[in-house]
């Protein structure tokens, strides 16, 4: 559960994720994730749906969603890429948007687009089990199972890597046929659990 102390300022949170509050709070649904008409159209077109609300007031507000683990991320002017379904809450000062992820999305079943957060402030992301933060540097590229990926931050290139060979089609695949390969400088968030993915059984 996430507790947010507020003194007249605002946060964006996943619609319906408030579980309790004390003090004075106002909840306002943000159509199109608060990204304006252009954002609304983009989200509708890309299928990266994100229904957010704006919470504003004085006091403490508590957020939670399906008892999942909450990880706090500090942003200092850099960009966080996160699946919309894993985003619980963010400072209102952070700009949200959508970005194209390339081929990766096709295998994860999360769509070809992902949500970005930009600016300075804090964001809370959800994971099934506590997330493991893995640093990527030019010497140490990282491969991640698409089902365990939740977010990444920093200047990273992602490549889709496939180990599909003729053996996969003979039912003797390695079970890890698809991976996202991260190269560059940044941090990747992985959860100790796997979502069901199209490539998961290959």
């Amino acid at each position, binding site marked *: 559960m996430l507790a947010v102390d507020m003194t007249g300022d605002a946060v964006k949170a996943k619609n319906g994720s408030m579980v309790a509050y004390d003090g004075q709070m106002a909840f306002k649904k943000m159509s199109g994730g608060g990204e304006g008409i252009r954002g609304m159209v983009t989200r509708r077109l890309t299928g990266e749906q994100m229904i957010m609300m704006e919470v504003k007031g004085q006091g403490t507000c508590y957020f939670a969603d399906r008892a999942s683990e909450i990880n*706090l991320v*500090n942003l200092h002017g850099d960009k966080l890429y996160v699946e919309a379904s894993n985003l619980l809450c963010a400072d209102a000062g952070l700009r949200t948007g959508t970005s194209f992820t390339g081929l990766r999305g096709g295998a994860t079943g999360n769509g070809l687009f992902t949500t970005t957060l930009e600016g300075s402030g804090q964001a809370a992301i959800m994971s099934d089990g506590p997330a493991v933060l893995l640093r990527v540097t030019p010497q*140490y590229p990282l*491969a991640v199972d698409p*089902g365990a990926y939740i977010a990444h931050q920093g200047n990273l290139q992602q490549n889709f890597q496939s180990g599909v060979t003729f053996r996969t089609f003979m039912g003797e695949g390695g*079970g890890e046929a698809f991976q996202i390969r991260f190269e560059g400088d940044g941090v990747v968030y*992985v959860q*100790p659990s*796997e979502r069901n993915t199209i490539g998961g059984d290959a």
Partner: protein
Amino acid sequence: MPAQSPVWDPTTLPSDDNVNPYTFCVELKGGQWFLQKGKMIAYYGRIDFNGIGHGRMDRLLRTSFHSPLHAGDWVVAEGSGKMLLADRAFDVNSFDLDEGNLTIRSGNLLAYQPSLALKQSIVPGFLTLIGTGKFVAASNGPVVFMEPPIRVDPQALVGWADCPSPCHHYDHGYMTGVMGGLRALTGIGGASGEEHQFEFVGAGTVLLQSTEALLPETATGATPHQAGVPGGSGGAAAPGQHGSTPRLPGQLGDLTRRFGL
């Protein structure tokens, strides 16, 4: 608010140890590990994953994999680097075997070193590891180690090491006679739900998980259809039926025995 968690990189990740209670890190230095399909969540370095029907793996299979019938559920990781394993956010733990044997519920075993040999257990749904080496197992809640003699709840049992006597135990006060049968079947008169346990005696260790929620089982492969092979009776006596006499219509079957008739 939770504190910012540490950021790991290949130099700080533990070698063959837990990163947190739900994630285990395996270091490969040109060696091999067996793992259940789909339990790898991320890796650094160069690691190949091969289905174990792979021809090149044949020699390895002969020495450390003895149940060809469920080969499809296992893969061999090979290469060098660090690899993270996790299973549906369950607790994972590693255990060392030293010239020992351990039998474990099939759904709980995640990965093991090829210096261990994996075999099907005579007990259906269980796998046995024999030899020296490390293996990784998942459990719902932390694992508790107990010394026999002990009776355990069937749902809490994860596995056992070095003790050859797993057997069923029934609480006879509750299970016999007309009243006992009624109690057990209907719950009227107070059924504790604990009338049946697994019993272990002798020297060894019994592994329990701290909940009674089972992990879904994975296939252990069919056993040969032969007389005398538990679980492999292939069309002979159905469970609960003694001998091969077919049950006649109108016969109460197990009920008659349960009610002491």
